[in-house]
């Protein structure tokens, strides 16, 4: 595992080894060049996937049942893919323009349901993208992964369950190397809603 700077000293992302198949399974690996597998960090990897029509078509085809719920307003696979891509694009621009004030973009993961509900009421209904991170210090975050969130609880969908595994894996890595002590770890978990 490697920590890659995105906007140092504020934003970093983990790069998982190619042997970690929660990240580099056969399907995901097929969207990357051989030399990228195991070398691309989570920030780059997610934005790459969120702009890939084939990945998004497959993802929403597999999860078509979730598109029928109110949140997605019965979008077609193509609509869901196009909205996801556009959201991801807008967010990248926002991040580029506000890369020194990262703290304002994150919210505690522990309160995810409350925040998610508020967002549905107050903001765009299509905010389905998530980046997950561990807060290292004030205005300093380490991205551990990302997902297209389709269910309220992370535990209720395979892709967000994988993200919980990745948060745990990164935590263990940081504890092992003495970067964090692991106490009250849940308070250090954050997400960005895109």
């Amino acid at each position, binding site marked *: 595992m490697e920590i890659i700077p995105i906007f140092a000293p504020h934003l970093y992302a983990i790069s998982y080894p190619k042997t970690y198949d929660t990240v580099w399974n056969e399907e995901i690996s097929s969207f990357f060049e051989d030399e990228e597998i195991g070398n691309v960090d989570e920030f780059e990897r997610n934005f790459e996937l969120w*702009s890939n029509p084939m990945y998004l078509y497959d993802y929403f085809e597999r999860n078509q049942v979730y598109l029928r719920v109110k949140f997605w307003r019965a979008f077609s696979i193509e609509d869901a893919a196009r909205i996801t891509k556009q959201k991801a694009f807008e967010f990248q621009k926002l991040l580029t323009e506000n890369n020194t004030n990262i703290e304002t973009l994150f919210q505690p993961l522990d309160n995810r349901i409350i925040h998610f509900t508020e967002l549905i009421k107050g903001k765009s209904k299509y905010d389905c993208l998530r980046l997950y991170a561990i807060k290292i210090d004030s205005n300093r975050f380490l991205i551990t992964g990302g997902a297209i969130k389709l269910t309220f609880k992370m535990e209720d969908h395979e892709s967000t369950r994988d993200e919980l595994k990745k948060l745990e894996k990164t935590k263990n890595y940081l504890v092992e190397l003495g*970067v*964090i002590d692991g106490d009250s770890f849940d308070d250090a978990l954050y997400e960005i809603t895109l």
Partner: protein
Amino acid sequence: MKANTEKFDALVSNKTSGWHKDVNERITNKAWQDKAFDIALKVIRHMRTNKVSQVTLAKDMGVTPQYINKILQGKENMTLETICRIEDALKITLIEVVFSNIEVYVPEFTLPAYSNPFSAKSVAKESFDWDSTDYQQAVYCQQKVA
């Protein structure tokens, strides 16, 4: 949770994230990449519905399956020739030029009553100036309006 930021800094790699290059490319190439994305979605939908494999499409188009894969991932800035070859191979329409928003300027012009050029049996057709600018303009405008 307490973090040792010095230890964290020591772990940070010297590598640069490829995201920076990617995002600049996405911003610069957004116009054609958006269209390539939409074309890819339509091709994927058609291929799935009609059970056409990437290998079959590649064979029909005379290209490699790797090239098809690149198109389906929205990474290829296709020429019109390539788009037409996909349309031909799959028997679908991918792009169309929209004319409906073009405004046609129709000048006010009334043909002389005695020489309606659209009537082959016009009584005065022998004496009518068929090469006149007025006549050519009237024909052009009527065709456009039609």
